[in-house]
């Protein structure tokens, strides 16, 4: 569902992403790990079309993000680490706006929005302005907005920043449920326990290069460790 081939991106003298190739099939939750400045966010930004690769190709489903951006974005959802929300809209207005952007004309849109607000515990805040919501509520609203058009691929940059334990559990359960329904999710995180807990496969990037890839058990075998993901990660990314 996500196909990356020989991806390169540099900023000045810095090679942010170096010959990255990766395939993520439908219905997989893929965790992308790496130290700060490893190239995770740059890769995600290239996947969304916000940044243009210097070379290489990216396909979301059957669509090339560079040559068919509108078609690719139609089947994709994106949750950035520092999300933008319209402060002067209510949650209902925001969700209707997003539905309009994705040209969703389902007759039960209002019911769907109400059900989603209920599911995410935002029903009481439906008439408040987004600017008045707490950080956790805004994050939950963002998840509803991202899933409103039922995307086939979802990219999430740091999914659990600022969330309380209840919201974290809710998001983890939601992501697993979506993947069971066939959605493909690529997420980046620094919380290694989260990756170990929910990922089908894990990729570790360092210096713009993919240095490890596989299931948790495969990584343990590959790097001769029976320890946690944290042990493997620190072993691979420590300075020589």
């Amino acid at each position: 569902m996500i196909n990356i081939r020989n991806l390169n991106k540099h900023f000045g003298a810095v090679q942010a992403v170096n010959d990255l190739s990766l395939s993520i099939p439908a219905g997989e939750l893929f965790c992308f790990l790496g130290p700060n400045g490893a190239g995770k966010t740059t890769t995600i930004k290239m996947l969304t079309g916000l940044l243009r690769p210097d070379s290489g190709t990216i396909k979301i489903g059957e669509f090339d993000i560079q040559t068919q951006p509108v078609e690719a974005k139609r089947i994709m959802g994106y949750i950035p680490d520092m999300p933008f929300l319209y402060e002067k809209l209510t949650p209902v207005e925001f969700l209707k706006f997003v539905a309009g952007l994705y040209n969703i004309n389902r007759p039960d849109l209002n019911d769907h929005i109400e059900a989603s607000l209920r599911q995410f515990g935002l029903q009481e805040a439906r008439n408040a302005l987004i600017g008045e919501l707490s950080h956790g509520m805004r994050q939950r609203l963002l998840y509803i907005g991202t899933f409103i058009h039922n995307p086939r691929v979802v990219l999430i940059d740091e999914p659990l920043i600022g969330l309380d334990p209840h919201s974290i559990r809710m998001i983890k359960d939601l992501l697993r449920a979506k993947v069971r329904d066939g959605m493909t999710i690529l997420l980046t995180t620094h919380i290694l326990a989260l990756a170990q807990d929910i990922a089908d496969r894990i990729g570790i990037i360092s210096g713009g290069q993919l240095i490890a890839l596989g299931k948790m058990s495969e990584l343990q075998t590959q790097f001769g460790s029976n320890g946690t993901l944290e042990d493997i990660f620190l072993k691979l990314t420590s300075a020589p």
Partner: protein
Amino acid sequence: MTPLTAIWMKDFFVLRNLRRMLQRESVFKVTFILLFATGMMGGFFAMFLSGFRFLSEMGGGGFMITHRLFALFFLGLGLMLLMSNVITSYATIFKSRETLFLLTAPLDTRTLITYKFIESSLLSSWAFFFLMVPYTAAYAWHAHLGILFPVWTFLFAAPFVLLCGGIGALIALTAVRWFPRNRIFWAIMAGLVLGATVYGIVQIRPVMNENASFVLNRLLPGLQLASHPLMPNNWVAEGIMALTSGQWSRGLLLWLVLATNTAVLMLLVQWLGDGQFYNAFQRVAGAADLRRRPAELLSGLDKSLAFLPHDIRGMVMKDIRSFLRDPMQWSQALIFFGLLAIYFSSFRSFHYNEMPDLWRNLIVFLNIFSVSSVICSLAARFVYPQLSLEGHSFWILGLAPTGMRRILLTKFFLAALAMVAVSAGLMGLAAWMLQAGWALTALSVGLAIAVSLSTAALSTGLGAIFIDLKQPNPAAIISGFGGTMNLVFTLGFMLSVILPFGLIWHWHVTSGFNGTPFHQANIAATLWVVLLSSATISIPLWLGIRSLKHREY
């Protein structure tokens, strides 16, 4: 629902919610802001009306100026709108977080650029209408024009706003997409522009008729350009007048010329945006990483400020570096003061220095007024919100081993120093170019210093009293109750100190107000300025310090 319809619906919801928020605000606050806005428009109306009456009293030349002033007015407003649109287009199209959000949605570039272009044109146009309404109303009142005059004015103003917005958007798109980022290139460009400006000022020699006591071009050299048949502002001015006087076919022709040119320009913006926006956006997105910055900006200045206490030195350097690294801030200040500097530098080219005392006196006080107005608006824009803009990083200052008093006074002294240097320098330049006497030179420089100090104190003090650390948007901070109050107080102070001297010196050159009474009046006015300045410097700062000390963060 198409994506563009969804975006317009979103804007409709935002406006509706803003109206609801306004209804929840205190009646006093809303009334105060509305009264201030109405008062300003009323003041502009009265000023324009008296200007038209003054020109009428001059006879033949005055009538000629009045007629052509309409075109000149739209030329001036159009140029300001254009400059404003270049900056707003850049911010709205490339730097807005909404652009990032919309770029991840299935929206084609043509739709995105069309929306952003219209948004930036609307955002830039409020000042245009704020000035245009009282001017055209005064003109209609003075010339006894028909009731349909405002309708024709708006009919022409709407496409004119979009035309200026279109040119601004094209400049912003082109500059971001193609202009090299090389510092040497920009230094050469800046040098060329400066050289061309200086050469232009030196070379300008308006047509002089030695026998005429009064030459049109000598007073208003922009009239010829403003009345050129190919200039859009002339289509607007002539078109409005044609429709007002019942020349329907000529009026319609001029409107169609304006509308079709605007439509072509909008198509051009769409075409260029569709083809080049993504490329231009990539240059902006990668710019931060491409730019090689020194690890420490102005390290030499930092070392030379070693005599300051360490905490004050740290705050001063932080504010200077933040200001210099924000082009939106220094470019606006540069445009305002640069235009004034160019205007003042051209006085001798236009022989203003050879004018009779009455005119030179009038120009000196108009200069004081214009420099002070710019100081007030820049203080409202940059000084007032500076404490609020510390935002989430205010805890760094709050937890540092320094007091709120030192923080506030440091902000005040830095702002005051910058404003005094620029305003006093400009007033000195203007007085020198006009060959004004020492007394008038000292007076204009002194008034500029008083206005700068008091404005800096009022803006810093009120900025502390009405501090809003949760608001990251400076426009929202400025447009609040405290921001409006700050603007009212600074403008009020400016008028209170300039008007007494203006009247004394006007009577001096017109009615023979000389000798001891003239000196006594000057001493009294000076005392008034000193007393008022002392109060407007000390009281807001004291209240601001008290507010910061007693506030819970």
